[in-house]
């Protein structure tokens, strides 16, 4: 592969999912993670849109990386992202109108998600198509995973259901399905992950 660096598919995926998880580790693009995670479905759809935009932009940039002039690279990236965001926006509006209504604003706002442009800058502009694709997949999946994870947590506790399917006949903790609970959910889960990681490292160190 190019630039003398070697990336395996698995490594790229693991990177996005765990090591540099956009939400829990890099703490980037957290607006939807707070506002849109009171159910799993919204988290999934938004994650899907981000995944699409990330992969598409990564691929586009890595294809045209020699064409894009160095000094206008940021505006160019923004235009590329905005294009793919518009595409996914129009696609969702056309083919998933029912779900689209709830997440419309956030789909448009994917344009300004720092995670996407930072991947373009850091990775896609220096690598060929295939690693860029997998990098985008990793990051997008990591984002989607985080969103859905918070979503599962909140939807189950908040409304006793998952993906809109009633699992419990009552609502264990109505509070968790409320918008402000998103902050608490992410704060607590972030701390939980940190704690687990520390424990894991300590355990590995002992071994």
């Amino acid at each position, binding site marked *: 592969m190019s630039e003398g660096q070697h990336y395996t598919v698995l490594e790229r995926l693991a990177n996005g999912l765990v090591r540099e998880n956009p939400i829990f580790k890099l703490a980037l693009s957290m607006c939807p993670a707070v506002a849109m995670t009171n159910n799993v479905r919204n988290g999934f759809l938004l994650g899907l849109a981000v995944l699409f935009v990330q992969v598409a932009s990564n691929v586009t940039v890595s294809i045209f990386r020699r064409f894009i002039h160095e000094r206008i690279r940021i505006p160019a990236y923004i235009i590329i992202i905005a294009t793919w965001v518009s595409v996914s926006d129009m696609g969702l509006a056309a083919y998933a109108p029912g779900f689209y209504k709830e997440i419309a604003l956030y789909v448009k706002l994917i344009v300004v998600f720092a995670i996407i442009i930072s991947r373009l800058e850091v990775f896609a502009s220096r690598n060929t198509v295939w690693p860029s694709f997998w990098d985008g997949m990793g990051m997008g999946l990591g984002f989607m995973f985080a969103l859905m994870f918070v979503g599962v947590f909140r939807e189950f506790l908040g409304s006793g259901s998952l993906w809109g399917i009633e699992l419990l006949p009552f609502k264990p*903790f*109505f*509070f968790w399905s*409320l918008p*402000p609970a998103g902050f*608490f959910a992410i704060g607590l889960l972030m701390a939980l992950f940190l704690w687990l990681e520390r424990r894991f490292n300590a355990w590995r160190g002992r071994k």
Partner: protein
Amino acid sequence: MSPRLWKVGVAPHVRDNATVAGIMWTVFAVLLPQLFLSAYVFGPRVLALAGVGVGTSMLAEAAMQRLLGKPVSLSDGSAALTGLLLVYVLPPGVSLVLPFWGAIFAICIGKQLFGGLGFNFFNPALIARAFLAVGFPVAMTTTWIMPELPAFLAGPDAVASATPLALLKHSGLAAYLAQYGGPHGLWASFLGFKPGSVGETSPLLLGLGGLYLLWRRIISWHIPVAMIASTALLAWVFGPEGLFTGQPLVHVLSGGLILGAFFMATDYVTSPSQPLAKLVFGAGCGALTMLIRLKGGYPEGVCYAILLMNCVSPVLEDWVRPRRFAPPLKKD
């Protein structure tokens, strides 16, 4: 002379006898008359609420301190006080689950997560109330208990189904006055025979308690006076019939204003400590209270007003520094 061990320590070697525990338990004790009145007015379940609130918050405090490897400091009374104040801002008819979860939220999230006493930004009891208000909205808005008036206060038409402020907000001043306007109503309102949160009903007992704290110099006059004065002023200015027609007493005696002004807004940790900043803080609490009561979505605004001013408290603390003894020497 036998060699003996002398204690060394840094000056001063004499100390004032005020202690944190003394302050907290004094406030706790001063609050109790209102609790007994509520138990008489709303029934003994109030005592069960208070027991759950105080007990849970003390347990939660001990558990959290254990978990975080800190010395357990239940004797300083701050956890017990938080639990009691939390129960004071709950409607008397709520189930025991509410003070339980509320106390856990207040202590674990509102206090210990920030490092315990002294580092929380929001009054733990009030932030827990805000949490309960969104988490258990129905219970927090409907479980009022209508007191049975003692004979000397019973008016001709003493039937109401909401707190005085809810009546005022949703049915207007006329409905309020019909209920609480006459001499009987005013007395009932002043003595504490009216629907409301567990600990806010009696301006008389709370006011006396507050005065005692003032006299003991546990709290300073700045916050309560500024808060009550600004509430009264705004209530008078923005009256229901145009400017300068309001009835300040209606707003001062109703709801949690007295409780908030003497016992909530004056919480040391979450309010500024300089006199000027305290005045601003108190005035802000009063203004926000009236803003929420007159324009906001809730009939009562004291809780949120104090919470919002708690957000501003670090800023005030930062802006209003003590006046220094003298400016530094000018270097020529």
